[in-house]
């Protein structure tokens, strides 16, 4: 697992605009970047966990119920 750096407000603004298609207000980017940095730190142990062959807990169910 590679280390990540705290996302900069500029990176956050570009990602929101270019990858998500939801531009952020200029005044929001610092706060979103700070929140993301905190989330990434909290996710560190989860990202590093060896989950072996486990598949995701949420799986597609082919037996769709009748509408």
């Amino acid at each position: 697992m590679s280390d990540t750096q705290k996302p900069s407000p500029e990176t956050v603004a570009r990602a929101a605009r270019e990858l998500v298609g939801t531009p952020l207000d200029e005044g929001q980017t610092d706060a979103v970047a700070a929140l993301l940095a905190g989330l990434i730190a909290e996710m560190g142990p989860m990202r590093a966990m060896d989950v072996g062959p486990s598949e995701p807990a949420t799986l597609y169910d082919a037996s769709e119920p009748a509408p």
Partner: protein
Amino acid sequence: MTAEPASCLEIAAAVQTGVRTARSVVDAALAQAERFQEPFHPFITLTPETAREQAERVDDAVRRGARMPLAGVPFAVKDLIDVKGFRTTCGSRAFADRAAGGTATVVEQLIGAGAVLVGKTNMHECAFGFTGENPAFGDCPNPWDPQRFSGGSSSGSAVAVALGICPVALGSDTGGSIRLPAALSGLVGLKPTYGRVSRAGVVPLAWSMDHVGPLVRTARDAALVLEVLAGEDPRDDTSSREPVPAYTRNLDEPLDGLRIGLARAGFFDSLEPDVAGAVEAAGAELASLGARCVDVALPYLDEVLGAHRAIIFSEAAAYHRPFLADRADQYSAPVRLQLEAGLLLPAVDYFQAQRVRRVVRRAWAETFASVDCLLTTASQAVAARFGAQAVDLPGGPTPLLHAYLGLLLPFNLTGHPAMSVPCGFSGDGLPVGMQLVGRPFDEATILRVAHQYQQATDWHRRIADAVEG
């Protein structure tokens, strides 16, 4: 001194036997709701006309000999639960005019059992927070100390029951949002097993971790209400086909030999002394009732927090994305910020979190093989003052999220049934809650433990000063 508010069981018995009419019970509930709206803001919408019509229908049915387990019981629902004819605001300006297209299954079930809807309760905006502060519809102060928050996100539901307006209100719980406000407000809050109660007609926060359940004063009422709510619902394809037991039937069975696990590492670290003392005393009380407390380990707690964060932010952002594009400025700044951050989390983190979830669930199943349920505190601290950023705990200043949700959210990730139960008061007179966690689909055991505990203690009988006044 004000009398203890009547329970669901007591009201239903009185209405069923003709001692009271549903109409008189509902009129009293509506009057209490009006009395307490300022300054507690428990309701976003009151439903007096339909409530009185429903109550009169219940009275007619009783006169014709109908038997209903919740006859004439006034109830309220968190305002993310749809009721046709009324708006579902999710506690947000962004949804202030959202008309419900239908009625949630849980509401239909309660009305079918004779209960009467009196209103839709206030909440932390979009259920994405836990203090009960709400800039659009007013904050929900704690009835035990209005300078402090009531907990959320099902804040209005907790306040409505704690103030004695109605004996039951429904909430939703994605990271502790039923159990926390119940604990901080001196109530019982039950989060059933994931899939046990239908989510149909309930606006999601995070589909794979959302649970609907009751806030009440007694475990017996929780069992009574769960008997009405539990079961498969064709409208919710995550609802379970597991058989539904009669939850009220075995409540009085003794606890002799029951094994209660204490996960000391992770769940008993750094608690406020009053909280630690109350929960230790609760363990001793349960032991005196015949249960055997044993130490157990729940691994992966650090990973659980990160997995919960990845899932809740991703799923909430996915749901709200079209609304953000349309009306981002109508969300409050903190909620909008969280949703926009969720848009930017990598998909691989979401799927790693779902893989972690499966590993954790298997590991904890091994822990539950040696015990019948777990006992923890519901929160590390009693209710904090509005505006607090952290709480001072023995381990140092602790962010509110960790202090108030850290011991609750693991069971949203795993889906185990869990409930908070009043177990004492701090020196400041604020309620302390313990948490009981059961095996998947074994709500019956934690309800029995809670009921036996409440038969031996009187914490749940105490009434907030606001009600006395």
